[in-house]
């Protein structure tokens, strides 16, 4: 194999830090594909979960339990007529979804799925993430303006006001966590995403529990602000369908509209991973310092395989419970095949966990560790994604003045107080 491929093997650095463009590109493709698939899965899960919250069934027709519904939706959206309103600003109307999409995906450069499982590590990582995701709002604002229609414009105005307000509280909450990273002998913190997780590793505590309840309050502020930042219910004022039909994307249709949706969900995953990196220990498994024996390492490394085994079991049960009518024959075969694939993945992961259980530098052990990092990170993201759906199903939409009041008069003072208290406690402790 050429040197540019093999030279990265055994490296404990991200491809960006090691300067290996080939593997950086591979990581970019893997992350892009993974996020796109995750968005499709999220689309299905959201429709299903929302339906069950409201005692409905949700999509049931396309594939078993509507599993193929996202694919059908994607085909439908790609084939739909692409309408640009006659009075719209053509160029900006065209470019607006791309701005949102680019910003949402650029952020993934620095998300650390593991100590070396990121495209690159930047010393300004967290600032880069917050900054670039704030550019995504421009896409929404510009889309609302370019549509040259009243509802989108109101949606865009609301969105820009909301973003500016919540970004402040969000930033201050992150700063209080960055202060916590400086609790070391050197006395300087870090803004690097990988560095923040390593600081938690070194201090032996997730920042959500640090200086209790200060870390927890900062996390709660971020968790509220990130819903507002991604325009999700209950803060989805920009697309409040009962008031503005669909808000900023009222005039969009077909593929362009789906780009907005892709950007929105990608941004949701991105902000969740900021919260996970900064407060929830990033790629670390639960209790890495309390249960640190190699036996515990082995037990926790079984989790990815067992998760897939559980999914395979659910699919198998679905196959068995499928009605025995001949109409469901193809669906049944498909679901059985899906169960078999999941079972195979589970088997391979379990074999890998057993083969790589000794903490040496063998390829299996390395690979096993990498899978563990990515698994715990993705599991935490999945929890956040479910919370997003849960919020949407549970809470009614805020009124705009209430939204502004919460942002400026509640979250901002609390986050400032938390910042100052964190600094004081940090100085007293060290």
């Amino acid at each position, binding site marked *: 194999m050429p040197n540019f491929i093999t030279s990265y093997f055994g490296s404990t650095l991200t491809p960006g830090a*090691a*300067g290996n463009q080939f593997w950086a590109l591979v990581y970019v493709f893997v992350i892009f594909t993974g996020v796109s698939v995750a968005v499709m899965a999220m689309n299905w899960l959201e429709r299903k979960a929302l339906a069950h919250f409201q005692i409905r069934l949700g999509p049931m027709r396309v594939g078993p339990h509507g599993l193929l519904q996202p694919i059908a939706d994607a085909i439908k959206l790609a084939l739909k007529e692409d309408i640009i309103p006659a009075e719209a600003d053509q160029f900006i109307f065209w470019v607006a979804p791309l701005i949102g999409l680019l910003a949402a995906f650029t952020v993934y450069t620095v998300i650390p799925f593991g100590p070396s499982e990121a495209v690159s*590590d930047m010393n*300004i990582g967290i600032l880069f993430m917050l*900054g670039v995701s704030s550019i995504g709002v421009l896409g929404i604002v*510009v889309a609302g303006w370019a549509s040259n229609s009243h509802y989108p414009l109101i949606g865009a105005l609301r969105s*820009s006001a909301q973003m500016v307000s919540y970004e402040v509280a969000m*930033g201050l909450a992150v700063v209080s966590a960055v202060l916590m990273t400086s609790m070391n002998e050197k006395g300087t913190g870090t803004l690097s995403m990988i560095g923040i997780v390593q600081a938690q*590793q070194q201090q032996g505590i997730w920042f959500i529990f640090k200086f209790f309840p200060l870390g927890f309050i900062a996390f709660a502020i971020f968790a509220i602000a990130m819903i507002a930042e991604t325009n999700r219910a209950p803060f989805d004022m920009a697309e409040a369908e009962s008031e503005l039909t669909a808000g900023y994307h009222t005039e969009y249709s077909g593929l362009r509209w789906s780009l907005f949706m892709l950007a929105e969900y990608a941004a949701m995953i991105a902000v969740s991973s900021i919260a996970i990196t900064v407060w929830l220990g990033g790629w670390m498994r639960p209790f890495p310092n309390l249960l640190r024996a190699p036996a515990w390492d082995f037990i926790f490394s079984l989790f990815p395989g067992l998760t897939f085994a559980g999914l395979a079991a659910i699919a198998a049960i679905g196959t068995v419970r499928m009605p025995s009518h001949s109409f469901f024959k193809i669906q049944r075969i498909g679901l059985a095949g899906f169960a078999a694939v999941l079972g195979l993945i589970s088997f391979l992961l379990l074999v890998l966990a057993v083969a790589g259980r000794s903490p040496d530098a063998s390829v299996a052990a390395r690979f096993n560790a990498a899978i563990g990092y990515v698994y715990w990170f993705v599991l935490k993201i999945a929890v956040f994604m479910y919370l997003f759906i849960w919020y949407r199903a549970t809470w009614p939409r805020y009124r705009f003045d209430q939204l502004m009041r919460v942002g400026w008069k509640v979250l901002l003072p609390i986050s400032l107080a938390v910042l100052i208290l964190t600094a004081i406690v940090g100085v007293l402790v060290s």
Partner: protein
Amino acid sequence: MNPVIHSVAPMTMMGPGMAPVATPFFFYMLAGLAIAGGVLVIVLRNAVHSALSLIVTLLAVTGLYLMLYAPFVAAVQIFVYAGGIMLLFLFVIMLVNIDRAAKDRRFNRIWPIGLAAGCGLFALFVSAFVKGRALFPDRMMAMSESSNTQQIADLLYGNVDRMGQYRMGPYTFAFEIASLLLLVAILGAVIMTKKKI
């Protein structure tokens, strides 16, 4: 306390790839984008189009900051200018009536003054370019594609730390004065907008 885990990016971690690649190409591309965006800001009739061109300029300048090994300044540029301030610009532009503004004459009577100021600035730049070596001490190392990656890594990864230390150390007073300026501006805005306080 394990110092090995802590130090985020020890300088030994930098591989050969940290050396800048295709520097002239990126410089000319970014500089060209910045200038084109700047020209479009004043040439375009529609205020929203101008604002978008300004964003292009700001982002291109961000890239130039990155090339100058100032990642923190670049991040702040994105965060504050391209993200926050331009969003407020757009917000205001959408609220005011731009139909009338589009019909106004764009180049008004004070253009000779503007021209003189522009020429003065250009002359300053030219003189700085010509006599740069004499004006500014040659302390910074010359960075090229073949230069020492260790020094580059040191610069890159030490940037934020050093910035914070300087700001809390020798430049505290200047920093606080600058923040006082912002405070005055905020107070002025509040007094001008609120009828009764």
